[in-house]
């Protein structure tokens, strides 16, 4: 089903007699796919309102990302949270949509400085599991009127409702960007450098460390600067002085390419199993080291100053893709959550794709789902039981 209006969408959900598999462009095949009729929002497309001077954009959920990027770029603006395109990593085809970005709370390297998709979502309209059209939030940047269901919808993967429209805060494309790159640092030293950078006043907009076996000849530690030309030049120099060691500067388009490949986790496109861990940044290298010590050899990319680990276990990894070990080490080293972003469907069905929640939290989550979707028809089981 591909409704073309919000009303049609509501009717499609209301009249559904079994599970629905909610899709935007179908490019983010993550989680346990629901058995059911595909309900696509791709027919709900178009910009309702764009006010560059107010930094606000209101769009239908099925609007392709490429359309939004082009529209914003023409006014010197962009979505600052730098949403990842999953097609390369997951080998999917199709057209990524803004609804999918919000529903999956998809962000990129700049999340460490500016926030995630959930932080830029100002308002939503959605159809709940009963087929009711509901709204929350609005199109203004400060809004504390009632509960913030916008945050709840962001990252709910269509399990609470089907997004029909989202309002977003946008931001300016900076005058220039440049990246400091150091080669050959081990993960611990790389992350320590990133931590120093993020604790500086130099407005770092990207901080990543790529292990030696993730595409380059050697490990790469990257620190991104964006802004007015003079400011970027000054901050680059001051930062390199402060950190010491051997840093080279990559500017302009070459810098953009580095971060786009990182954003899309391009080095792991060939991997069969890919984990995504969100952890306390300084724990990042420790977790990776402990996994290696426990015979889970893997490749690792650390983004968000070490707090986001993209982890690709080697082909002969443990039968569960390392699930038990990864989650145990993470819990022992400060907590966080691990998502099995890429794996064969059979393995996904056996494992928890999303981080299992403690009983008290799981009870809240289950009860919330039941309120939003009493019949349990929206992407049932996608995020787990």
């Amino acid at each position, binding site marked *: 089903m591909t409704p073309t209006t919000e009303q049609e969408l509501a009717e499609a959900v209301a009249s559904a007699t079994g599970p629905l598999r909610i899709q935007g462009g179908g490019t983010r095949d993550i989680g346990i796919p629901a058995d059911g009729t595909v309900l696509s929002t791709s027919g709900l497309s178009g910009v309702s309102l764009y006010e560059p001077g107010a930094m606000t954009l209101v769009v239908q959920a099925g609007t392709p990302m490429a359309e939004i990027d082009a529209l914003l770029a023409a006014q010197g603006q962009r979505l600052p949270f730098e949403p990842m395109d999953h097609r390369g990593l997951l080998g999917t085809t199709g057209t990524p949509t803004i609804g999918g970005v919000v529903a999956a709370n998809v962000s990129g390297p700049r999340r460490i400085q500016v926030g995630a998709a959930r932080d830029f979502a100002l308002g939503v309209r959605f159809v709940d599991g009963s087929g009711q059209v509901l709204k929350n939030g609005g199109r203004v940047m400060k809004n504390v009127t009632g509960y913030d269901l916008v945050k709840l919808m962001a990252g709910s993967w269509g399990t609470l409702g089907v997004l029909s429209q989202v309002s977003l805060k946008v931001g300016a494309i900076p005058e220039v960007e440049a990246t400091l790159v150091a080669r050959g640092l081990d993960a611990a030293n790389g992350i320590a450098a990133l931590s120093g950078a993020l604790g500086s006043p130099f407005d770092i907009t990207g901080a990543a460390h790529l292990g030696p076996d993730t595409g380059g000849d050697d490990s790469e530690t990257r620190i991104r600067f964006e802004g007015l030309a003079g400011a970027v030049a000054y901050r680059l120099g001051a930062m390199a002085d402060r950190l010491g060691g051997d840093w080279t500067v990559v500017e302009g388009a070459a810098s953009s390419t580095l971060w786009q490949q990182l954003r899309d986790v391009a080095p792991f496109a060939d991997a069969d199993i890919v984990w995504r861990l969100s952890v306390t940044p300084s724990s990042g290298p420790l977790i990776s080291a402990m996994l290696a010590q426990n015979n889970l050899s893997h490749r690792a990319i650390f983004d968000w100053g070490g707090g986001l680990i993209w982890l690709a276990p080697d082909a002969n990894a443990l039968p569960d893709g390392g699930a038990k070990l990864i989650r145990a080490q993470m819990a022992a080293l400060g*907590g966080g959550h691990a998502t099995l972003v890429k794996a064969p469907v059979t393995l996904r069905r056996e494992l928890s794709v999303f981080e299992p929640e403690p009983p008290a939290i799981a009870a809240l989550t289950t009860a919330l789902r039941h309120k939003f979707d009493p019949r349990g028809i929206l992407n049932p089981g996608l995020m787990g039981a």
Partner: protein
Amino acid sequence: MQMPTPNADILARKGRIVARLQAVLPAGAVIHEERETKVYECDALTAYKCPPLCAVLPETTEQVAAAMRVCFEEGVPVVPRGAGTSLAGGALPTADCVILGVARLNDVIETDYDNRIIRVQAGRTNLSVTGAVEEDGFFYAPDPSSQLACAIAGNIAMNSGGAHCLKYGVTTNNLMGVKMVMADGEIIDIGGGHLDAGGLDLLGLICGSEGQLGIVTEATLRILAKPEGARPVLVGFDSNVVAGHCVSDIIKSGILPVAIEFMDRPCIRATEAFVGAGYPDCEALLIIEVEGAEAEINDQLSRIIAIAKRHNPVELRESGSEEESAKIWLGRKSAFGAMGRINDYMCLDGTIPVSELPLVLRRIAEMSKEYGLDVGNVFHAGDGNMHPLILFDANKEGDLEKCEALGADILRLCVEVGGCLTGEHGVGVEKRDLMGAQYTPEDLEVQLAVKDVFDPKWLLNPAKVFPLSVTEGRRA
């Protein structure tokens, strides 16, 4: 303003409830004498007052949990209270409620510069969070004007903002985790040193829920490195419309100031008379502040000034020193006090799309005339968060009611033009009965359903946020 009739059965059980609370809390943590409970009869929305049944001041999360268990078993409503600075009546008691104050939970638990986080007990004041890290070059970004007094607990309850959120965001964008006591006394942990949720974003839901979903006792907050410097420029215009266009042009240019503050003529005159900051006598005044290293500040300010000049300002004053910067900010920071010198005032908090600024200011001026009450406007222009200050005389019969009616009309206008009722103060009791202007009954029902999940007996701050008629069947 209507509040629910107190439950006579609870009032009759006061002695037993107090005794049970005393049994699980340290000596002196239960305040129940009538002359003492008066301290808790209102928050910063002083127009409405009602002493609670009693107040409890626990010192640990476990004590909060113990007190909550007693209230849960006794079926007593609980009104959480941070520092009591809410302008929306978020901590206003009912006669049959227990005030649960977190003021004694004020320790720093952990500071972690490597990971740029601080973990504090939720009763700690906003400014003292920054105070704990500023010697090491860090700060906590959200800066509500009450930051000297207000507690992090209240900031989380209302998702507080401040003057600098144009760049740094509001509380929800800087909150990484909480420890929270549920209505039945269960203690849960959400979030922590990592970013984003592994499942549903419960943290985002809790932030801004006005103490209706649980009692937050600890918070993990993001701290940031202090910028090398900051400097404001003051620009005066002879028209609100032109000032509005200037704000829009600055934003479109791609420069992101940390603050763009706006004051209109009534506010300018009042602050001049009060503190003599040397502001020009003009229709509209902008204070625009940028941050960075010296050269970077100069670069940004010169671009902003070039834009401002295109709009023919009547005054343009770039700060040349710390002293001059302080003077530029002096009037803005004294604005509320200055208005309060003239008369009693009510401070509104609606947000509008920045593009609607000229229309909304014109309509407010018209309404002000119709009602015969003066309104001054001082607000965060960059994000459209308005703070119209309605002047009235509390001692004059009918003036408060007239003021409330004008306030409601202004807030409805904010919603009509695409904005919302409250940008950073919260709904509380103040805007409770206007919720229908922004949300349909179905939109409200799903929010009530969320509260049903967290607080099935509706004991936590039950008479707030939603119109009483809507919550009637749910409240105990």
